[in-house]
């Protein structure tokens, strides 16, 4: 790996993003709009089971999902474009190592993910008055990790694919099952055993677990989940590097 080449790649990806104002606006504003929609939808509706407002727990958990989804799509489409334009083939024939390409992308989009996650959390807490029992910094941390996870998964998924068509299909394959069984719709403990065990290998489960800890004002309890999320991010990046193909059929 070469720090200079990684940095040059990150800089280039950020330059491309800067030239695309609409994408930046979408990345930053869209999650906020979606959360606002949810806030409008539920208003002060009270959950009849718990007698607590419905918006707070649902908003906090979905907040983890939107940045991950968006970053996944943006990252996989950007690397996809890199392949279809032939520039990936050029990079692969250059002195650049595969790790430099993946890490350069991860750094650039990681920066965007961090800005996105931080703004979204602050907006939800201070503008939409989303009431989490735990500390706001803990929520910011988890949301940013979620966005980073989306980037890392997007990089891994798009380099696993052999064709552009396969790469696009990775989105529903990787994200939708997590949406269903990571604990958004039903607490993982209440799921059928098999689904529970499947959910333990899905990264989003740990993000939701951590958010549940914060909702229960148990910020100290998030650290195992933080470590697991970092592990998933690192693992996805390594997968992205090892599966990037220098030679193609």
């Amino acid at each position: 790996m070469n720090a200079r080449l990684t940095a040059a790649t990150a800089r280039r990806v950020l330059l491309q993003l800067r030239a695309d104002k609409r994408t930046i606006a979408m990345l930053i504003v869209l999650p906020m709009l979606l959360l606002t929609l949810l806030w409008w939808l539920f208003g002060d509706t009270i959950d009849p089971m718990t007698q607590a407002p419905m918006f707070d727990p649902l908003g906090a958990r979905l907040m983890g999902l939107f940045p991950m989804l968006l970053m996944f799509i943006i990252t996989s489409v950007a690397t996809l474009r890199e392949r279809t334009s032939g520039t990936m083939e050029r990079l692969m024939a250059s002195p650049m190592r595969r790790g430099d390409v993946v890490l350069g992308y991860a750094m650039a989009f990681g920066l965007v993910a961090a800005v996105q996650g931080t703004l979204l959390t602050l907006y939800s807490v201070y503008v939409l008055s989303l009431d989490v029992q735990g500390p706001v910094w803990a929520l910011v941390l988890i949301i940013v990790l979620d966005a980073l996870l989306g980037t890392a998964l997007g990089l891994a998924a798009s380099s696993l694919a052999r064709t552009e068509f396969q790469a696009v299909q990775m989105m529903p394959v990787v994200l939708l099952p997590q949406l269903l069984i990571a604990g958004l719709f039903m607490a993982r403990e209440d799921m059928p055993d098999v689904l529970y065990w499947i959910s333990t290998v899905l990264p989003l489960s740990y993000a939701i677990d951590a958010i549940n800890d914060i909702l229960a004002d148990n910020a100290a309890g998030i650290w195992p989940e933080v470590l697991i999320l970092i592990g998933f991010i690192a693992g996805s990046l390594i997968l992205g590097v090892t599966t990037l193909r220098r030679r193609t059929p």
Partner: protein
Amino acid sequence: MENNAIEITGLRVVRGHKEVLHDLSLTVPRGAVVGLLGPSGGGKSTLMRSIVGAQIVADGDVKIFGLDAGTPPLRHRVGYVTQAPSVYGDLTVRQNLSYFGALVGADADNVTHTISSVGLADQADQVVDTLSGGQRSRVSLAAAILGHPDLLVLDEPTVGLDPALRDDLWKLFRHFADQGTTILVSSHVMDEATRCDRLLFLREGRILADGTLEEITQDTGTTDAESAFLALARRGEAA
């Protein structure tokens, strides 16, 4: 020092269950401008991809300066221009070349100089997507010559260019060759044969001829590349 820039023996490439290069063997001497001529679909791009190490090969040996194609020490020494311009359309010419320059250690002066050598000085700060097709392919060419590679592999670099520009590019290739760069350039335009030191005729995944234009025309009793190619193709079909 080896005398050959490229040495290929028994190269076979299979794409989608179909063999597209059949037991190909050829050599390209150092410092020469070698034209790879033949119709589209004949395997020119596949052969070039095998040479830069981007192609999965089924069998055979591809040696570049005595090293296996695509291995790390070669990546500084081989410049490759794909048929479609492979540059970032959403960046300016200079941003593109600064990035590709960083990969091979070319500084800002080198970037500026390279931009003018391909005749794009006036477009340096223009976004690539707003350029014409010919200008875009010159950005792609500039990206490949930045690091002063020892071998330049160019896939149809002059297609669709205006004749004056084509002439400029061939002069540029000649200039590089004079400095010791080996150039393998593909074309489906037979009249570009006169620009090359040596020719490789490729048709249906087989080499029809390998030599100078003079040798090939003498061998076939013809006067130009087009009719020589035709004669060789007929000869192949008769056999």
